[in-house]
Structures are given as structure tokens and as C-alpha cells.
């Protein structure tokens, strides 16, 4: 029996807040005690070593080497493969996945395309003024959450970085004004000083009305309302934004998943620019990134290909086109003839009619745990657990890179090695 060993400052990889203050006590390759983990993180660590995948081909258990070889064979024989997922793996594995996509002429897309992808498209149009979470914690006196519910999706975000965090100059909740714009009164809205209910699908109109008011113009409305709000209410919100010294806007899927898609975030980013025209005021914004390394998937893809997601290598050089090379479109249009899913569960997370195509084509999944996609995948490749049994690099939602340390042993290699080995087999065939 080994002694109880303590590991401090471990990074939880569940969400984009990447809390790096987790303390674990380990004995006999098992977690005995956990500190600082949120409710979701605690479940993640408790479940980490359970429910693990094993190497399988067509439902039959086999060796690790055989599944790697089978995956290489499928991708080599495919005319238009899709490599998808990537947001719950390391930057090192993401880099190798891009190399594999180039080698096989594949489409490569991350879960960002069904998450903050539209916001990234807006960034390409108008740019985004942003800051680190530390800077926001220390200085921001007005925090706005728009279509975001971190209390349920990023449970420790408010304690570590925003509403409840102890910053250098802003010490506690009473030092910050908090406004939530949303279509429903979420638990985050209940923590705010003010909840502003937006009529569903009218975020763009409200953001543009705020822009007009901040620029000294009066928006017109036949019934005196915009987005379900009286013009006077919007004017009051605009005045609050104008009176901030250092404002921060955190936005969620409420802006990216509604009808106007990237135009919502375009309007929000433009609002930030307008607010920053006054030199006395600073405003920054940030997407509330969901998966642990989804920010890293965009960073790594952009560093490797020039584009953040939705990349196609069929012409041997990278082409970018959301709506064409994005997973939902490629699957719904039945354009891909094989799929390599890396650390993701499209069968559970994508529209059912899009994911259904995965059942008609050879599908490979690389994941440490069973999920709805591994249920029917032709090839299942087990892998080590990022931040638990595998090390690597991940990027926080503010693009700060963090190093993951492994503190338990695993029988399976990590994603980085698995993807590299498949690539080498194809390259050397």
C-alpha cells in the first residue's frame, strides 16, 4: 500500500474557466480527497476512472494497436473524412489532428461551431476588445452577463473571477454592479443587481438600440418598445453602461444560438467599441467558453491553418467556410464518408438528424469514456484522461495557456500519441 500523496494546483478541465486550484489526495492510484472542486468538477473526478472505453472494432474487443491500424485504414481510404470534436483534448493533440487532416485531405471542425463559433466569426469582422480574467477581477466595476448562465455552466467562475471574487482593487460583490440580459431568469440573473428580460430573438435590436443611445441618437419604435423593453428602460441601461469606469461583458450561447447568430455578437462587439470611444471609460468582453479547451481548439487551429474552425484540406491547403465545412452541415448534407471523433459526443450533442449520418459511415471515436457516439462507432480507441492521467496544454476562456499535470497512472496512451500514431501509419504506408 502506498502513502497518501497530495497534489496542489491541479487544473480541472471540465469548463473554460479551467480552475487551477484543485487539490487532490491520492493513494493506490485512486483519488481519496478533493478540495476546491465545484459540483460538476467533483462528479467529474469521482467518475474519472469508471466507465472506461476499451479498444473495439465493430463491437468486438481487440488490441490497442489493432484499433490504431484500423483507424488509419479507414481515414486513408476515405475520400472526404471529417475530423471533429477537439475541445476536450490538449493543444498537442489538436496540433496533431490538424496534421492528420492535412495528410488525409479532411475537413476539420471543433465543437466551437455549435458553441461560440458565430462569435468568432464576428471577431473576424469587427475585432474584440478583451482582457484576462485577472484584470477583470481586479478592476471591473460593472459586469454584464448576456445570454450566459455561469452559475450553472461555470460554477466557480463568479467566485474566482467575477461577482464574488476578491480582486486587487475590487474586493467583493458590493464593489461591482451586475446586470444580466437574458430571456429567462436564470440562477445567474438571480445574483444580479438588475435582470433585463430580452424578448426572444431580439438581442440584435436591443444591442443596436443601446449603441444608438450611447452615440447620442434616439432609436424609433412604433409601439415605444424594442426587444420587449420600453425605450426609457433601454435608456437607463445605456446610462449605466456609460457611467462605468471599467465594464466587462461576458456573453453566452444566448447570443450565438439565436436567429441572428454572428450578427448578435457583431453588435455586442461594436457596442464595446462605441463605449471605448470615451477615453475615460474601458470596456472589455469575453465569451463564456464551455468545454475545457475549446478556446485552445480555435487557437491551435488558427495557429496551424490560419482559421479557427470549419477548415477543409481537400485541395491540400486550408480553406475556411462556416456553413459548408462545419460538422452539422457536412453531416446533414451527407458529404463526408468517414468520421474521426476526438474527445466528443456528437450523437448526444448535435441535432439528431445531422448526427444520424455517423451511423451510415465508418466512424472512429477516441475517448476515455463511453458515450452515445462510442455506442455504435466502428472503431473505439481508449485514451488517457486529460489533466488526470495525461499532461498537456489547455487554454482558458481568456486565452491564458495552462499546463495540465498527470497525477494518476493509466493503461492507455494520451490523445496526442494516438493521433500522431494514426498519422504516421498513413504517412509511411
Amino acid at each position, binding site marked *: 500500500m502506498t502513502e497518501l500523496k497530495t497534489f496542489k494546483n491541479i487544473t480541472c478541465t471540465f469548463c473554460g474557466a479551467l480552475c487551477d486550484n484543485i487539490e487532490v489526495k491520492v493513494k493506490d492510484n485512486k483519488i481519496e480527497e478533493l478540495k476546491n472542486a465545484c459540483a*460538476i468538477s467533483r*462528479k467529474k473526478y469521482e467518475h474519472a476512472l*469508471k466507465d472506461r472505453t476499451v479498444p473495439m472494432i465493430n463491437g468486438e474487443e481487440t488490441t490497442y494497436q489493432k484499433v490504431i491500424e484500423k483507424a488509419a485504414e479507414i481515414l486513408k481510404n476515405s475520400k472526404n473524412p471529417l475530423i471533429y470534436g477537439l475541445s476536450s483534448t490538449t493543444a498537442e493533440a489538436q496540433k496533431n489532428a490538424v496534421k492528420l487532416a492535412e495528410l488525409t485531405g479532411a475537413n476539420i471542425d471543433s465543437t466551437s461551431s*455549435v458553441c461560440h463559433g458565430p462569435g468568432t466569426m464576428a471577431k473576424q469582422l469587427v475585432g474584440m476588445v478583451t482582457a484576462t480574467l485577472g484584470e477583470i477581477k481586479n478592476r471591473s466595476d460593472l459586469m454584464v452577463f448576456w445570454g450566459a448562465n455561469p452559475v450553472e455552466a461555470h460554477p466557480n467562475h463568479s467566485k474566482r473571477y467575477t461577482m464574488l471574487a476578491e480582486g486587487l482593487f475590487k474586493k467583493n460583490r458590493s464593489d461591482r454592479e451586475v446586470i444580466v440580459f437574458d430571456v*429567462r431568469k436564470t440562477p445567474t440573473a438571480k445574483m444580479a443587481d438588475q435582470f433585463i428580460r430580452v424578448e426572444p430573438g431580439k438581442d440584435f435590436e436591443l444591442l443596436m438600440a443601446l449603441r444608438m443611445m450611447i452615440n447620442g441618437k434616439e432609436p424609433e419604435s412604433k409601439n415605444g418598445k424594442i426587444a420587449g423593453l420600453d425605450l426609457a428602460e433601454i435608456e437607463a441601461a445605456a446610462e449605466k453602461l456609460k457611467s462605468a469606469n471599467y465594464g466587462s461583458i461576458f456573453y453566452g450561447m444566448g447570443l450565438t444560438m439565436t436567429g441572428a447568430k454572428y450578427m448578435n455578437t457583431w453588435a455586442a462587439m461594436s457596442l464595446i467599441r462605441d463605449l471605448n470611444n470615451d477615453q475615460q471609460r474601458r470596456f472589455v468582453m469575453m465569451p463564456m467558453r464551455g468545454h475545457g479547451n475549446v478556446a485552445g481548439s480555435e487557437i491551435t487551429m488558427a495557429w496551424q491553418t490560419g482559421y479557427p474552425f470549419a477548415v477543409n484540406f481537400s485541395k491540400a491547403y486550408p480553406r475556411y467556410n462556416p456553413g459548408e465545412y*462545419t460538422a452539422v452541415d457536412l453531416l446533414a448534407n451527407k458529404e463526408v464518408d468517414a468520421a474521426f471523433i476526438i474527445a466528443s459526443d456528437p450523437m448526444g450533442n448535435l441535432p439528431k438528424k445531422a448526427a444520424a449520418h455517423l451511423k451510415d459511415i465508418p466512424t472512429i471515436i477516441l475517448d476515455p469514456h463511453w*458515450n452515445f457516439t462510442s455506442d455504435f462507432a466502428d472503431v473505439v480507441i481508449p485514451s488517457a484522461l486529460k489533466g488526470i492521467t495525461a499532461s498537456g496544454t489547455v487554454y482558458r476562456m481568456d486565452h491564458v495557456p495552462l499546463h495540465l499535470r498527470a497525477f494518476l497512472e493509466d493503461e492507455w496512451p494520451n490523445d496526442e500519441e494516438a493521433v500522431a500514431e494514426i498519422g504516421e501509419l498513413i504517412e509511411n504506408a
Partner: protein
Amino acid sequence: MRGGGLTLSDNTFILITGRTIKQGMASVSGKKSDNYKKETSYVEVSQNVLDRLNIEEGEAVILKSEAGSIEVICKAADLEEDIVFMPYGPTANTLIGTDTGGTGMPNSKSNVVRLIRKEAQTN
């Protein structure tokens, strides 16, 4: 107007899919578990709407969209009358269509759904 410019009849709503803390906890505790299914297979509806449609909380209802149809349990919630809410997951994704409007992003928070009492469906 109910629905932000979309024409909604008495039993149609905008489906907002999203995160809940219990859905998050269940998603990392085994996707194939009964608990994950339970935490992703219900719809939250305003109490006023339940009263108007004569639906009891906990009753099974049918939700229909252009993409598909599901049967789920309904829960009363503090919601406006133009929306219903479901946690992210494979059940809700049955109702989400594949049109991304050239962005890659489906309408996961702007899909119109029809809510029907299960009893009315079977009669």
C-alpha cells in the same frame, strides 16, 4: 407580440435549450446512465401556460418541431409565456433542425415547438 416577431399560436413556443447544473453533473457521471437521461428529458413551462393548456406538472407531454417529436415530463418554472426550456442533450436535439444559416450553428435557442397534451395526442 409573443415570440419576438415569430408568429406563435396558443400552444407554440420558442424552445430554449441550455445548461443546468444537474445536467452538467450527470454528463460527467456517465452519459449512458439513467440519471443523465432523467436530467435531460423534461421540459420547463410557465405555470400560467400549464394552467391555460390544462396540463398538470409532472404530466407527460408531446413536443413537436419541424425536425422531430418527443415525449417528455413537464415541470413548472419561472418562465415567460413565449418560451419553454429543455436541458441540452440527445432528447432536446431530436427537436433541433439542421439548418445553420451558413454559420455551422443550428437554432438551438430559436426553434419553434408545439406543446401537446399526451392525452390529446392519443385521442
